[in-house]
């Protein structure tokens, strides 16, 4: 006789399906990125994927877990892609590699691997690299930089020198630098009007990459891979605070549209803050998680020491998630209004 516990009927879903959908949803954003900013991102995606699978396989082997089963679950690939998408596209290969390895080994497998990591591995990689190699992590390709793919690959692999002219500050960084000039005689609105850097509303080219993430994210929500709470709360709180400060002083603070479409906001709202493993799980908890992440991201990117705050905001919310979840447990059947 066979033994199997009930239920005997199961829905046709699996972890690798979920992860594949996330990857598919990233494609519009990646396409816009490769098209508008440069195909180097594709190289970085390959490097990161390779590093992630390598680290995953090594750790699984060390821990005596079945390789094929877990390598095919696709979670390492999601992590890798998110790392590649958050790093500067011309970052040296070894930095992407190190970051990915660190993410998979320290942030994921030391906690038991898939599903058990309290911190978002991709964001750990980003944070580790930005504190370790701040110079390299803040070199973004100069606007309108036209480089052949071969040249870009040469730069990534250190075969061609990194020329300063290749890089420029990202819109967010430029804005902060302007703020930091301290003369007080600058006007964000004027700055933003500079279409060379800022495009139509939030950084030339980048705004459409962000729009690509938005499309992918909405599709993910439509497929119910993510729930609405985190993105809505994230975007909502970011819009609220940036809107309030912008209304208060439009010369010193950028408008909400700029904040929504620049940096990692939309990637973060739909793909990063929604990581089910390291985020909150209760409905109210998700709202708090998203809102907290949005708020912190704004504070850090505008007032703090880093060009963009999404990564740190997500990590900070990750570390609060267990307690938030505990405090927002929904009332169970029959216990509403009691307890």
């Amino acid at each position, binding site marked *: 006789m066979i033994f199997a516990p009930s239920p005997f009927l199961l829905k046709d879903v699996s972890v690798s399906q979920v992860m594949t959908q996330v990857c598919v949803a990233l494609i519009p954003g990646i396409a816009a990125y490769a098209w508008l900013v440069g195909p180097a991102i594709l190289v970085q995606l390959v490097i990161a994927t390779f590093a992630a699978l390598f680290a995953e396989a090594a750790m699984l082997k060390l821990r005596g877990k079945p390789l094929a089963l877990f390598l095919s679950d696709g979670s390492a690939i999601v992590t890798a892609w998110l790392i590649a998408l958050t790093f500067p596209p011309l970052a040296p290969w070894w930095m992407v590699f190190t970051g990915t390895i660190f993410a998979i080994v320290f942030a994921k497998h030391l906690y038991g691997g898939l599903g058990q990591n309290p911190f978002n591995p991709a964001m750990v990689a980003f944070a580790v690299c930005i*504190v370790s190699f701040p110079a390299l992590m803040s070199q973004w390709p100069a606007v309108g930089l036209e480089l052949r793919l071969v040249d870009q690959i040469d730069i990534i692999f250190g075969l061609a020198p990194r020329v300063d002219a290749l890089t420029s500050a990202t819109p967010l960084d430029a804005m902060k630098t302007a703020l930091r000039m301290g003369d007080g005689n600058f006007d964000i609105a004027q700055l933003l009007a500079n279409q060379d850097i800022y495009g139509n509303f939030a950084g030339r080219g980048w705004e459409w990459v962000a729009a690509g993430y938005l499309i992918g994210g909405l599709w993910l929500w439509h497929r119910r891979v993510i729930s609405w709470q985190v993105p809505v709360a994230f975007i909502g709180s970011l819009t609220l605070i940036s809107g309030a400060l912008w209304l208060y002083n439009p010369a010193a603070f950028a408008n909400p549209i700029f904040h929504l479409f620049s940096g990692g906001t939309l990637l973060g709202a739909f793909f990063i803050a929604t990581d089910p493993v390291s985020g909150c799980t209760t409905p109210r908890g998700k709202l708090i998680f998203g809102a907290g992440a949005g708020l912190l991201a704004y504070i850090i990117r505008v007032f703090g020491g880093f060009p963009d705050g999404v990564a740190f905001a997500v990590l900070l919310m990750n570390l609060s998630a267990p307690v938030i979840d505990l405090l927002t447990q929904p009332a169970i059947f029959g216990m509403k209004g009691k307890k």
Partner: protein
Amino acid sequence: MITRHELTNIARNGLWKQNSSLVQLLGLCPLLAVTTNAVNGIMLSLATIIVMAVANIAVASLRNLIPHEIRIPVFILIVAALVTVVDLMFNANLHELYVVLGIFIPLIVTNCIVLARVEAFAAKNPPLHSTLDGIFMGLGMLWTLALLGGMRELLGAGTLFGGIDMVFPSLQPIQLLPESYPGFLLGLLPPGAFILLGCMIAWKNWMDARAAARARDKGNAPAAPAPATAA
């Protein structure tokens, strides 16, 4: 006075089995805060060793005179006085290092390991044993701080014994990794300190487990101690 067995016991406990940094998880603040290089770690450990050894002598000799209710304030008083002496000495003779180590010299007072040893060992044992216990506990701390500091600076900057010139002005740090090493700064930052210490603890667990497995293979040991169920 002291048997060989007791001596090896005290030494083993201090250096490995009850290592303050890896097992008891005491004295963590200096362990993590000052170990941006090996020299800082070693010098602070030396200061701690002195304090611990002398405090242990003092408490062990005075233990019968100290009333129970105020034993903690008195122990602390003794430790604090010793620490201040050390602090003054550092200030006078190793001023640069004194500045680098900052408040972590006076904080030896609250270093749990000092008080823990005083309470747990010196208050119950004769002076000679207590002194040795203090010294070995301190040596246990010393090697962990030195190792952690060394790893951190190597990872973070590619050098070893940075800051040695503060102790011996004639010596220079060793550049171990090539100049082009980009410096994995995480090593020098607080997160790196925590993570590396975590790895050291895991390493110790692994060593213990391996030793236990060997002993078991020889067939003369009782059940192996469980690795890392501590904490």
